[in-house]
């Protein structure tokens, strides 16, 4: 990969930064994980590359911002996609702003998720590390929420499913990630659900019932009564 430099090592692979067809580009290489059996590694990698590309395209159709897809190379196990030069991870943004701003953002996140689920896209790994905020004017300023676009990334564990069950699990994964990362988790998640409701009017009720069910399934939870 000429002209690309290592940017960071994510959970699934290495992320490189560079230029492709004159555009700032991220190359996500799902390199061979030596700890896995080669058969398992190649089948999982293929599956994840497929899911990631499919969901990105589906999100685009649904009007949810994700990086634009440039090229999928199965042989080299790389996806080339849009790079946002001025962006901040939602996780870092939330820890740096007031509760009020964090709640507003949470509502925005919820609305986008509502849209995603209305299109039957299950993200599969919703955490605040997998959401970016990008300045609309291409500046490295992240102060006014109205100047920031919300982008979802890391669709490797995503799939397409219309059932409320998978949507409930998706929300539960997010709730748990919030609790383990943010001290404001409770109010943030309430806002997420509010936003979700507003964008997914036809299905939110069923999904919220499932969410309650999924919560009750957690192991070794204290049960009263």
């Amino acid at each position, binding site marked *: 990969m000429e002209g690309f430099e290592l940017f960071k090592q*994510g959970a699934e692979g290495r992320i490189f930064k560079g230029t492709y067809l004159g555009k700032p580009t991220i190359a996500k290489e799902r390199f061979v994980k030596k700890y896995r059996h080669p058969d398992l590694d190649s089948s*999982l990698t293929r599956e994840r590359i497929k899911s990631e590309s499919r969901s990105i395209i589906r999100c685009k159709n649904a009007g949810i911002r994700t990086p634009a897809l440039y090229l999928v190379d199965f042989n080299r196990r790389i996806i080339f996609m849009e790079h946002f030069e001025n962006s901040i991870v939602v996780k870092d943004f939330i820890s740096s702003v007031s509760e009020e701003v964090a709640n507003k953002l949470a509502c925005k996140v919820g609305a986008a998720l509502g849209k995603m689920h209305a299109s039957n896209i299950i993200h*599969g790994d919703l955490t605040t590390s997998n959401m970016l905020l990008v300045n609309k004017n291409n500046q490295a300023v992240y102060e006014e929420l109205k100047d920031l676009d919300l982008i979802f990334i890391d669709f490797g564990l995503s799939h397409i499913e219309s059932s409320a069950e998978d949507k409930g699990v998706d929300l539960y*994964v997010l709730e748990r990630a919030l609790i383990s990362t943010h001290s404001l988790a409770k109010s943030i998640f309430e806002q997420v659900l509010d936003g979700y409701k507003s964008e997914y009017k036809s299905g939110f009720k069923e999904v919220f019932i499932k969410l309650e069910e999924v919560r009750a399934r957690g192991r*070794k939870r204290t049960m009263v009564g």
Partner: protein
Amino acid sequence: MVIALGLEGSANKLGIGIMKDGKVLSNCRKTYITPPGEGFLPKETAEHHRQNVTKVLKDAIDQSGVKPSEIDVICYTKGPGMGAPLASVAVVARTIAQLWNKPLLGVNHCIGHIEMGRLITGAANPTVLYVSGGNTQIIAYSRERYRIFGETIDIAVGNCLDRFARVLKLSNDPSPGYNIEQMAKKGKKYIQLPYCVKGMDVSFSGILTFMEERAEKFLKDGYTPEDLCFSLQETIFAMLVETTERALAHCNSQEVLIVGGVGCNERLQEMMKQMCDERGAKLFATDERFCIDNGVMIAQAGAEMFSSGTKMKWEDCFITQRYRTDEVKVTWRND
């Protein structure tokens, strides 16, 4: 200076140990082993603990060289675990606390594993993979709690291994997991099994059912029991390593600590090490003395609680089968 005596009996291991300021003075254990093809049940396990507890307690005190009067605090496993075995040991803890007039502390079993692992390996702030017969959790410390980032949504990984061992009628001595590990070393052919990762959570029940239903057919088709053990280990451990890696990336952590009975599996440690090497992280693991349930880990966590001023009222010294890692306020860490 704190001398703590810990009693553990949440599953089929009865363990009693004594710690003095981070040094192990004694670590005695007796395991209830069932015949091949059978698991351990609460009633019989509690019976085993009751029959052996005075002998193990006497050994632990004799080996430690301390007199009961020198002990500062009695610690026991409050939960999580099986009710009857937990109660059989808690009764002994209550009795000696009154007999010797010592304070009594109920310890969360998972916290015991984490604190013992940190002490033995010197890992300061690791992302913890806790894997045993009853638990599978990925844990990281944040804001005075050990937070659960990922966990199994159905059965524990050790439970999956134990029950698979019953399918093949492997011996439970010294443990089903150990025997699977030895057989897996001779396995060659890899069978693709279901692989179930949901974010940072994992699921094992589907894999177990898949194996239970097809094991016989695989064996007829020319696969050996060794191949089955190999394929199962490779699949479920890959799931654990992958989710641990997700938690590492999310927390920007550079340390992994493996604790719990399944944690002494060398293949799991090897796979985790490869993952850590690929991202410049460090792996910490312990051997069977501390990985497998034991009394000193309860003593160690109890000693930390005691030193930071935790007191427990007599009426709070009960046992509970459900007791999540994140319910405990961590008063002894100041980071």
